[in-house]
Structures are given as C-alpha cells and as structure tokens.
C-alpha cells in the first residue's frame, strides 16, 4: 500500500472521469481495473468532495490541509487525518496519482 506524505502533490488520474451532476461528485472508471464490478461508479461524501476540489496538480497535501482548515475553520489535526484518509482511499483505487518531478 502506498505511503501518503503531506509534502506530496497529487493529481486526478487519467484513468477515471470525474463529473459533478446535481451536486453529486461522481467518479466514473474509464479503464479496466478501477472498479470491481461491471456497473460500478463512485461518489464522494461532502468532506471528500471538498478535498477533491483541491487536487490541482500544484498544491501539496500540506497546502490543501492549510487551505481547507482556514476555509472551514476546522481542527488542523483532524483535517490532516481527513486528507490522508481520502488520498489513501483514492490512491489505492488509482483515482489519484502522485506528481513526480522529472
């Protein structure tokens, strides 16, 4: 399982398509192997959605934590747990990938 570090920058994988429909954020697998079932898609809960919108391929996870802590006046440590938790889930499913400098 991938280790998630706060200094890493993540971006949304090209293997999925993310759509926002009627306030739902929907993640649709594009290539084989993302979902387990033929007819599967994924949605994010409200916390996940707020974090997802910060994945721009530029901000590190630490910067995302700082941004969201300020925006939602949330506890910093709790925010770290949320961001690491979500990225862990997404990375395991190949929905986000770490940006590696050339």
């Amino acid at each position, binding site marked *: 399982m991938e280790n998630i570090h706060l200094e890493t920058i993540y971006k949304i994988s090209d293997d999925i398509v993310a759509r926002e429909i009627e306030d739902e954020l929907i993640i649709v697998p594009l290539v084989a192997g993302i979902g387990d079932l033929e007819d*599967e*898609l994924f949605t994010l809960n409200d916390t996940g959605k707020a974090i997802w919108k910060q994945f721009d391929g530029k901000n590190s996870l630490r910067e995302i934590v700082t941004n969201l802590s300020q925006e939602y006046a949330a506890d910093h440590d709790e925010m770290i747990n949320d961001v690491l938790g979500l990225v862990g889930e997404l990375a395991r499913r190949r929905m986000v990938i770490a940006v590696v400098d050339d």
Partner: protein
Amino acid sequence: MTDKGFVVRKTFESARLFEGNPPLLPHIDIELTERCNNSCIHCYINLPENDSNAKNRELSTDQLKDILDQSAALGALSVRFSGGEPLLRKDFSEIYLHARRLGMKVKLFTNARLITDELADLFGTFRLLNKIEISVYGMHKDSYEAVTRVKGSYDEFRKGVDRLLDREIPIILKFVPLPPNRNDREEFVEWIADLPGKNKPTYMSFLMLRTRRDSEDKNKLIKRLRSSIEEQVAFFVKHKTEYCNNMPQYAEKFFYLKGSKLFKHCGAGETVTIDAYGQCQMCMLLRHPEMSFDATKNTLRDIITKVFPRLRETEAYNQNYLRRCAKCFLLGFCDQCPGYSWSEHGTLDTPVEYLCQVTHAHMRLLGLLKEGESAWEVADWKERVDNLVNQLPTA
C-alpha cells in the same frame, strides 16, 4: 469536516444516485446508422450497407460528439448506440471513446460481425461499463444465414462473440425466434448456459413493422413471420410460473386505466432518441414526423424542456382507441403505444389488433378475463386483480 467513508461505491442503476433530484437527461439513445451488413428478413429499420443516400445524410462525427457533449452537460450517465449496425461507422471507436471520456457508460446493440481484435481490445481496455447486447439469428450457418441473407455472416458473428469472450467482456445474447431458426432455440439455451457470466435466455418475441413505413412488401413479410397467437400463448404457458411470481409487483405497476392521454404511464420523453440523421424523438419507435425534432438546429435542453412536455400531453382522438384502449385495464401489459400505432397504421392512436389479442389471450389464461370478454368492458377489474394476487402462492 468530520464525516468518514469518503469514497462511496454505487452502481449506475442505483435508484438513489440522485435521490429526489434527477438530472434533466439521465440517458440518451443514439442510432448511429440505419444501414446494416445483414439483410434480415424481419428487420424494422435496416437499409443496405452501401446505401450512399442514407450514408450521406447521417450525422457527422462532430455532430455526434456535440450531441454527446450536450447530453453529458444535461447529466446523462449512459448512452446506447444502436442501428442498423452501429459498427459500420468508420468513426465508431472515436465516438465511443468520446462518450466514455465524458464519463458515460455505453450500451451497444450489435450483430457482432464487425468485432475485430482491435475493437475487442479497445473494449477490453476502455470498458463499456455495460453488457454488449448481441442478436442471435440462429445456431447454425444455414439457419442463421437464412435470416441474415448474407453468406459468411454466421462465421463472422461467432468470431466476434469469441473475441469478446476471450477478453471477458460482458455480453447479452438475444435470440430472435423466426421460422428458419425454430429448431435452434434449445441449443441456444444450452450454449449460453455454458458461457461465463450470468447469461439468461433473452428473446425478442414481437416483430415490428418498418418504423419508416417505407416498404409494404417488407411489412407483408414481417407479418407472415410473426408468431401466431397460439404460439405466443404456448410461450406464455411455459413461463407462467415466473410470470405469476412477479404478479404482485406487476399488479401494482401495470393495472390502471390510461384514459385519453397517450403518454400517461409511458416513459417516452423521459430520455431521448437521436436517429441516424439527427432527428430527436421521445422514444426509439416513435418516428411520427410531428413527434420528431431536428437536434442539429435545436438544443437538446430546449427540446426536452419546451417541446417534450407539450407532446406528452397529446390526447387520443381515434374513436376506437377511446372506446377500447383508453378504458382497458390491461393497457399496461399490452405493447399498444403511439410508437407501435405509428409503425402499424401511420397514426398515434389506432389499436393494434395483434397486440390486443395476445394480451387478452394471456389474461384469459391467468383467469382475469372470461372467454369472449373484452377487458374494456370489465367494471370489477380491481376486484379481479386483487383476487388473482391473493390466490397466488407466496414466492
């Protein structure tokens, strides 16, 4: 920011996906062409593969992409590509990938003859997220090609199916019962039982007339090929137990009086169909010119929000329909609809006798109708339905 379980798995079919707030357009049907590489004896739509007039009128790649873009913007999560044979389009892969990259799942209706290794590989990599539905016209070269009227079509069909199975791409095989393949049905059931996945026998039992109303000769042939009422009844008897098991839920949904509004209790207009030339229809069968709108000159949003709601209020005026169908509690079980009426009679509201007779025969077997009785004359139909449901053994 405290809720956990960030990623939630769902399915496209999940009814609660947009609970109480469905998108304007959940699904779109697109007929990519009316041309086909088969020339099936029973087909309601096919034109010759090399029909240059039809080909020239078909939507361009860019027009199709624009319709897909509009559909996705309106919330569509799925598209069905059908035809004719949709794989005849040279740009099929491009259109397919465009739909998938918009985040839509794709349903494909095909005869499988044009499933090449390259195309199967594409489906293997970029999954459709849906089963490919393949029509089966026979289990042997002679019976299959007596239907398709194209030499070599059977071998190509089997190779296409094998290429998909080799890559574990989910498929549904649909048997089309016709006189030339009448001895193949059991073999078909055995074949699909041995295939991976949960393939259940699927049959296309009612043959439609030409929906373009373009060939009286072909219509005569199609009528001759239809199962007789007796054959329909025999099929029903064979599946009666399954039917009865589902009756409690059917009863709630499908027994009602429709009245004069043609589209009441009908899904037409909840999704849209685009024909091969860009005409937007409320359903695939409904090709009446007054019910078709040019999607290259109007936006889908305008058609869905301004035109379809008005069309859905259309009233029947055919006296025979008003006397019978409007007052018939079996209409929800009968395929009578404006689309069938159009292909049979060129109107929206003429009763289709064949459908009426089949439905009455089925319901007599269930005991809902007495011999010689017409459903529109039954005043105590609610009581009869309740009695039927109560008499059924609990599943």
